[in-house]
């Protein structure tokens, strides 16, 4: 035992040296590119170097950590130290949406956007306290493994795989979509091609080494993404306020924003309808939906298989707990900086765009206007002439930009900050590399979760329990590639709903997994029938609510007693249901298209469909408890099994014979 501990600490030290060198090397690489920019190397080449260099590094790690051992492939040999697993989880967790989109959401929604910041951090408390350490002790390879063992075999396993697939597949599609967007923007290749370049990057990391390769690349990706996220905002804070701690200094920016908001209203530069005060709560979400989002995202966090399976890789139960704490710390570094991005950008827009004469607008904006991401007076802001022409077309336009004239895509906030601060292009390239790292790492984790469920749970445990190790690993890889190609194909068709569906993933995971996981560990009396019916009822209700409100709102109104959601600021209904239902065009629009005025705008109890977990999970718990109490107490062996996973000491319950 003593030698093993010494070995483990040597391993940790060695990792520290390796990733320390890597971080230094990456910073050196950025400086080298900065020098290249100084001597006049064109931006396009710098963009190529950034994308290809980082992809190459991930690929090298992916190839070096290839493996033919089952436990290495599925759980990285269970020897990832807590701190490093925390970093890997951070990268696994923070997607393209967090990296690029979060700050933009906060820019648009102000205080109400913080529901996402809270929801996507606080869930780790549930992970550490209620679930992860126990699953680690159990010794599962996948979450369905646990469901099957605790709840009577393959039917529960199959249900868990369905939940996993529903929650992860749309999510991974959105990540591949994200890599495509970033790769196409910085490589200047068409989106459909860029998606497959991104796919190549993803597969190089995960295919040969499974969880082992994904773990060590995710750590490398975390380092890139956090450096990329913090650098521009630290420089901007230093420029503006002289102190390089943006997370503290944006308090001043918020005060200036609030002052400027009053000014804009007074000067007639904004209508009360267009202006959403940055710090005022409950302007965009009703309190119910605000807290609903927090609950669903938090509980969803604790139910998402690609996150839970990261804690299967630590050397011990104790390290699994510490590792959750490190995970949240590394995630926190990004999330508590996002509101600073939002505040600095908003101040820039409110002072240097709104209220300015049309011909005095700062030029950084036109780069994004060309991509169709910033519009002024309803038209893409291509250049001065274009916006002057667009605004002339509006009657009584005063010739200065008003708030209601200006619209910005949320992705621009983070990507444009280097330009707002007047930083060299190399910083923009760095940000792109960070966004790419965020998208790739999340895609890898999700793909692995899906492919493992298919290869381990469906193929090995259900179809061919006698399969040899080599065969299992080959099947695992083939399925990984198949799932990846399907997701990439779907992403390349640019499905409109995909981004909204990421929010749904959390509610689906919450309704389908959370009650069964928690009750399975914390209440011995939970029976197989209770759990199975609870999963079906909770998950079913959640899916039903999503599908009806999104695709069949007419049926929702006619048969299921749904009514319009309300506007948080005014309390008025979002749509006039009676008028829409009287219009034959909309009545015939089944399933509802994206343009349908009622899609995702009707529901019960004024509940947004993103929060459907709020209906499903409680129902799941109730069904589980009632049905369990009606049935016979679980067997002595099952109760002993639960006792066993509750105690950290001792062997793993499910030890694979190799």
């Amino acid at each position: 035992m003593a030698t093993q501990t010494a070995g483990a600490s040597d391993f940790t030290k060695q990792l520290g040296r390796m990733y320390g060198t890597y971080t230094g090397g990456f910073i050196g690489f950025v400086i080298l590119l900065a020098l290249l920019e100084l001597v006049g190397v064109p931006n396009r080449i710098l963009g190529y170097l950034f994308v290809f260099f980082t992809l190459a590094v991930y690929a090298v790690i992916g190839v070096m950590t290839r493996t033919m051992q089952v436990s290495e492939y599925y759980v990285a040999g269970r020897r990832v130290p807590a701190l490093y697993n925390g970093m890997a989880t951070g990268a696994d967790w923070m997607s393209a949406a967090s990296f690029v989109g979060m700050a933009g959401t906060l820019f648009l929604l102000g205080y109400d956007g913080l529901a996402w910041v809270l929801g996507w951090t606080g869930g780790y408390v549930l992970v550490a306290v209620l679930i992860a350490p126990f699953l680690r002790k159990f010794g599962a390879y996948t979450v369905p493994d646990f469901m099957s063992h605790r709840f009577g075999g393959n039917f529960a396993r199959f249900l868990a795989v369905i939940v996993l697939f529903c929650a992860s597949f749309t999510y991974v599609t959105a990540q591949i979509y994200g890599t495509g967007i970033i790769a196409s923007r910085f490589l200047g290749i068409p989106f459909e091609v860029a998606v497959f370049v991104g796919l190549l990057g993803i597969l190089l990391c995960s295919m040969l080494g499974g969880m082992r390769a994904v773990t060590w690349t995710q750590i490398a990706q975390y380092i890139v993404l956090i450096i990329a996220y913090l650098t521009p905002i630290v420089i901007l804070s230093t420029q503006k306020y002289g102190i390089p701690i943006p997370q503290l200094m944006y308090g001043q920016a918020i005060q200036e924003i609030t002052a400027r908001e009053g000014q804009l209203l007074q000067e007639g530069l904004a209508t009360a309808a267009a202006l959403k005060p940055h710090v005022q709560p409950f302007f965009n979400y009703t309190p119910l939906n605000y807290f609903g989002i927090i609950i669903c995202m938090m509980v969803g966090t604790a139910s998402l298989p690609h996150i839970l399976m990261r804690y299967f890789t630590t050397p011990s139960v104790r390290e699994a707990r510490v590792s959750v704490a490190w995970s949240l710390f590394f995630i926190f570094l990004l999330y508590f900086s996002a509101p600073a991005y939002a505040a600095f950008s908003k101040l820039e827009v409110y002072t240097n765009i709104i209220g300015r004469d049309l011909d005095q607008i700062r030029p950084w904006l036109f780069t994004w206007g060309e991509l169709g991401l910033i519009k002024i007076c309803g038209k893409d802001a291509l250049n001065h002439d274009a916006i002057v022409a667009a605004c002339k077309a509006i009657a009584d336009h005063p010739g200065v930009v008003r708030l209601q004239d200006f619209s910005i895509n949320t992705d621009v906030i983070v990507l444009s900050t280097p330009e707002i601060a007047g930083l060299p292009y190399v910083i923009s390239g760095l940000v792109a590399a960070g966004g790419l790292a965020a998208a790739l790492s999340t895609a890898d984790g999700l793909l692995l979760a899906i492919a493992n469920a298919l290869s381990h749970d469906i193929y090995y445990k259900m179809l061919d329990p006698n399969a040899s190790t080599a065969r299992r690993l080959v099947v695992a890889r083939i399925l990984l590639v198949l799932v990846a190609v399907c997701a990439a194909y779907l992403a390349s068709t640019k499905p409109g709903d995909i981004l909204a569906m990421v929010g749904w993933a959390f509610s689906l995971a919450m309704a389908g997994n959370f009650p069964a996981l928690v009750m399975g560990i914390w209440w011995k009396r939970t029976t197989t029938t209770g759990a199975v019916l609870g999963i079906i009822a909770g998950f079913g209700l959640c899916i039903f609510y999503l599908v009806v409100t999104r695709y069949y709102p007419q049926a929702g109104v006619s048969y299921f007693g749904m009514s319009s959601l309300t506007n948080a600021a005014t309390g008025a209904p979002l749509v006039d249901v009676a008028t829409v239902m009287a219009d034959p065009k909309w009545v015939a629009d089944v399933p509802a298209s994206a343009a349908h005025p009622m899609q995702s705008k009707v529901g019960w109890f004024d509940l947004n469909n993103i929060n459907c977990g709020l209906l499903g999970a409680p129902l799941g718990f109730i069904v589980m408890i009632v049905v369990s109490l009606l049935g016979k107490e679980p067997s002595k062996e099952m109760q002993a099994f639960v006792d066993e996973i509750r105690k950290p000491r001792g062997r793993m319950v499910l030890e694979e014979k190799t």
Partner: protein
Amino acid sequence: MESKDQAYWNDTSRLMWITLGLWVFFGYIVHMFVHVLNKITILGFPLGFYMAAQGSLIAFVVILFWFARKQDQIDRKHGVAED
């Protein structure tokens, strides 16, 4: 269950409830008082906004490290820790 195991599980459950109580407080209850808290300003931040943007996040991180240490103490006290 043996009484030894029962004592361990009672301690573990108590820690679970305390931690979840803190989680509910920082995740939800503080934010219900956002209007009141916003009347106080610190470093330019209205306090209600600050709690949602940073305060609660810091609390979650601290709670998790604290929880990991406490649970480890319980494990050791009852002799079920790994070594």
